[in-house]
């Protein structure tokens, strides 16, 4: 089918071919079996020359644009897409490793069902699998509606989220086009990574601040900032959109004009971002926003605040005892005054409310306080903004992170037996939720658990009744509106860059087929023939916009260009962005209000500080060996989970790097090796997420420990998980292991000349 092709028609044909492949997911008629072997190579396939396809990275929720170098039908290298406004040709460590998701040796090769109650899996056909799913959804539709169905995802591509939201609305007899009905369930999007990012809190506060006319997370123009203060945001490691922030940091440092940007980092544990910062302010975890209070008060006192600021902002800082608070935080007041002065007088200041603000129970108020500091200094007129509306009406409901309270409620519903069907569209709730949330036990009461992961996850292996494996992101379709974006409306395009390796189907195709089988309002809510038809509808809505990177009167040409360039984006920022209003954070300034009582001073108890691993994320990447063997930037440890402990505490406990300790909280305990870490206080221990899978393939299973086993399910003031309030004890076990690290010795000597 390629031999007659002219160069001009290349993208047209490529699109049609890919559509045929996706269609085959529904019809059972495998288009790829009819492909003619390359007796004569197709015109675009030159031996030894890479063909690049634009698509989207889905290794983390950010949604960077990628170019995939393919040759002979195989993907060989992922690069950033230089045209994509978010990452502009750059890619992070995790993004680079996406090939190892695609070519992972432990993927599920086809649908399977559990034989008997506790038996192993047996291969089934897609028809059998779809039949069971349709049957269960039909029962729900004729019974209690969406109340009996839960949809879970750690991170969902926007179209998957939108389709799942419509499925739930349809089960309730809801109106097509409405993401969720009044009392219906939304897809649950939550895991420890999202919680540690604070995405849910930031989203909620942003809605308060910018009102309902705003969509998505606010954007932070770090590139234009002169002075930025990051409150526990691991900007260049894992927070929300690390490639965007890394790229912006390069621009900020080199100076848009003549000024080299200045970065201060406020956090309890020295992160890689803290190393990059010009100034590092160590404060107890959960109290970062108190530094914002001090800065605000000093800025008010010295009359440095911006002229035009929303009413009510000053009130946030007026009554702060800055000097007392600084002493309480263990910071020099003079140092804070100095920072406040350069921050206050800057024409382009930016305060960044990082994920660490959600560590304590007052996370939302902490974010409001940092946002108030932004308004005080006028950042909303230079470096902070929000997007006004969806890029087009055709865009489906955008992925919204749930609150921990919603997750708890869903787990409670499962425990009580009122949930009949659980669809795990993405991720691995058994591993990615705190064990103490009781997910595994509650899920035992669910009638049918369907796991859609391409991999044998802990959830799939231990709980699922049915596995309907999805293709990886390099083999399937999608679109994504990045949050936070770079201040431009973007709808990134995801397309298959290689033929599907295994007998997999996209979850969206599966849901559409099942909805058709259920019929009635459910089928009306999801009217599309398949995933591609759904995407074409969405993309076609973008043709109305003229201020954009691609425009065309012809729907088919527009669709092809959308794929060719890796997406659609506006050429100008919003003409009329929503204006912020001041919030009233009731941030208490006593330590006890944040993380509970002070740690016991005898040194036997520590505050546990979990953090997202730069390489393994929350464990999503633990099946990718490149990332296992990439050293953590601060400790250089590979292949394991470790416990960071201050040198003085290590000495007190009589342990050194590599010694095993038993870490015990009120809800669980794990054993892991110690890493003596200089960038942490004596009453805190830190551990990276990512390890401790029971399954998930040869590279992940049984490696490291899961910090989620230790975290207490403390709910914050506004329904969030207060993930930084767990206290643990450490007990040396007497054992030790040789940690795989890069460093030969604990060198404190900087090489000569640096």
């Amino acid at each position, binding site marked *: 089918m390629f031999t007659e092709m002219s160069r001009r028609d290349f993208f047209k044909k490529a699109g049609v071919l890919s559509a045929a492949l996706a269609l085959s997911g529904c019809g059972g008629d495998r288009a790829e079996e009819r492909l003619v072997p390359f007796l004569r190579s197709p015109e675009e396939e030159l031996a030894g020359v890479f063909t690049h396809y634009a698509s989207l990275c889905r290794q983390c929720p950010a949604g960077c644009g990628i170019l995939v170098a393919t040759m002979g039908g195989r993907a060989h*290298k992922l690069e950033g897409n230089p045209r994509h406004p978010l990452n502009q040709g*750059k890619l992070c460590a995790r993004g680079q490793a996406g090939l190892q998701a695609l070519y992972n*040796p432990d993927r599920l090769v086809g649908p399977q069902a559990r034989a008997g109650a506790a038996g192993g899996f047996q291969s089934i056909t897609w028809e059998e699998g779809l039949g069971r799913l349709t049957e269960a959804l039909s029962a729900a539709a004729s019974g209690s509606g969406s109340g009996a169905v839960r949809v879970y995802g750690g991170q969902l591509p926007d179209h998957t989220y939108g389709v799942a939201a419509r499925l739930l609305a349809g089960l309730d007899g809801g109106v097509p086009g409405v993401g969720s009905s009044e009392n219906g369930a939304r897809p649950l999007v939550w895991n420890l990574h999202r919680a540690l990012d604070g995405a849910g809190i930031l989203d909620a506060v942003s809605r308060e601040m910018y009102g309902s006319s705003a969509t998505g997370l606010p954007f932070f123009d770090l590139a234009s900032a002169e002075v930025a203060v990051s409150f526990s945001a691991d900007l260049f490691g894992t927070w929300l959109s690390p490639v965007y922030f890394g790229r912006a940091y390069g621009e900020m440092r080199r100076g848009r004009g003549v000024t080299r940007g200045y970065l201060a980092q406020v956090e309890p544990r020295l992160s890689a971002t803290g190393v990059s910062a010009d100034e590092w302010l160590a404060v107890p975890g959960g109290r970062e926003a108190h530094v914002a209070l001090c800065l605000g008060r000093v800025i008010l006192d010295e009359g440095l605040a911006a002229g035009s600021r929303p009413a009510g902002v000053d009130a946030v800082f007026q009554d702060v005892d800055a000097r007392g608070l600084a002493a309480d935080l263990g910071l020099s007041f003079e140092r804070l005054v100095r920072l406040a002065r350069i921050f206050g007088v800057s024409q382009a200041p930016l305060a960044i409310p990082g994920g660490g603000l959600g560590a304590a129970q007052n996370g939302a108020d902490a974010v409001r306080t940092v946002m108030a500091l932004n308004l005080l200094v006028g950042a909303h007129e230079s470096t902070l903004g929000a997007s006004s509306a969806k890029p087009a009406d055709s865009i489906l409901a955008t992925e919204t992170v749930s609150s921990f309270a919603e997750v708890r409620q869903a787990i409670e519903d499962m425990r009580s037996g009122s949930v009949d069907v659980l669809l795990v569209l993405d991720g691995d709730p058994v591993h990615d939720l705190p064990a103490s949330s009781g997910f595994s036990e509650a899920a035992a009461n669910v009638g049918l658990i369907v796991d859609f992961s391409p991999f044998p996850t802990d959830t799939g292996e231990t709980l699922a009744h049915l596995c309907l494996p999805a293709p990886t992101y390099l083999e399937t379709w999608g679109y994504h509106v990045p949050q936070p974006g770079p201040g431009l409306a973007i709808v990134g395009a995801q397309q298959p860059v290689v033929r599907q390796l295994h007998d997999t189907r996209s979850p969206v195709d599966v849901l559409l087929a099942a909805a058709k089988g259920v019929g009635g309002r459910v089928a009306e809510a999801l009217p599309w023939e398949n995933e591609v038809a759904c995407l074409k509808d969405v993309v076609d809505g973008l043709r109305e916009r003229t201020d954009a990177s691609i425009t065309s009167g012809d729907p088919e040409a527009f669709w092809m260009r959308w794929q060719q360039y890796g997406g659609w984006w506006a050429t100008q920022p919003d003409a009329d962005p929503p204006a912020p209003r001041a919030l009233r954070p009731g941030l208490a300034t006593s330590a006890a209000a944040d993380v509970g009582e002070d740690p016991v001073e005898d040194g036997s108890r520590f505050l546990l500080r979990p953090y997202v691993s730069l390489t393994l994320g929350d464990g999503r990447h633990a099946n990718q060996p*490149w990332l296992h063997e990439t050293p953590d*930037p601060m400790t250089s440890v590979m292949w394991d989970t470790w416990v960071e402990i201050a040198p003085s505490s290590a000495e007190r406990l009589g342990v050194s790097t590599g010694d095993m300790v038993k870490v015990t909280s009120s809800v669980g305990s794990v054993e892991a090796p110690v890493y003596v870490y200089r*960038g942490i206080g004596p009453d805190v221990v830190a551990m990276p997420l990512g390890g401790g899978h029971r399954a998930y393939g040869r590279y992940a299973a049984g490696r490291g420990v899961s910090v989620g086993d230790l975290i207490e399910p403390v709910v914050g003031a506004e329904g969030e998980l207060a993930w930084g309030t767990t206290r643990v004890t450490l007990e040396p076990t007497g054992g030790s292991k040789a940690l*795989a690290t890069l460093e030969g010795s604990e060198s404190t000597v900087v090489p000569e000349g640096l």
Partner: protein
Amino acid sequence: MVVDLDVCTGCQACAVACLAENNVGIVGEEEAAIGRAQHWIRIERYWDEGEYPEVRAQFLPVMCQQCGKAPCEPVCPVFASVHSEDGLNSQVYNRCIGTRYCAHNCPYKARVFNFFAPQFPSPLEQQLNPDVTVRSVGIMEKCTFCVQRIRRAREQARVEDRPIADGEIMPACVQTCPPGALVFGDAGDPDSQVSRLMASRRGIRLLEAFNTEPSVVYLKREGGLDV
């Protein structure tokens, strides 16, 4: 190459890009624990003086420095480690007999040895870059400045009958580096971006006292507002 330490964030994107581009093998935890991980580029983290909470650190990406007077070259008995005509310090895999003298002599610890044959459980072998040889057991390897990309750019320029443009050649690490801390180009061209950066007052070379004449220039961090 120029490495601007003022913008390096230690994010490891370069390290993974290099593994992917150059078919670098994965050795596993036990081998990595005895120093046999095969990274061609690594980010070292140095602690400054000072105790918590006044502790500071800095990152230093280290790859083969492509020395002008390379200590690895004179010790190779079979001329596997040799200077190429364009000044690259190249490693000829099919000459290498695995004496490891070169690695022993490299002050930057840039060279890694295949103590075992690399494993790519199927279908991981499909990820391999067809432009780069997979090295076998007993072979020494190291950063090549992505010589395959240099070759491709040169061929392309020759076909189009034009000089290679500044910035046209990007090793995988340079291409992916989010903040743009790594810059690659022709140091012999006084107008190239690397030449301009190399002339910076912040420029230093690693372990210059050894007189190895490295081709990589590091730009020291700026001192922030106090400068």
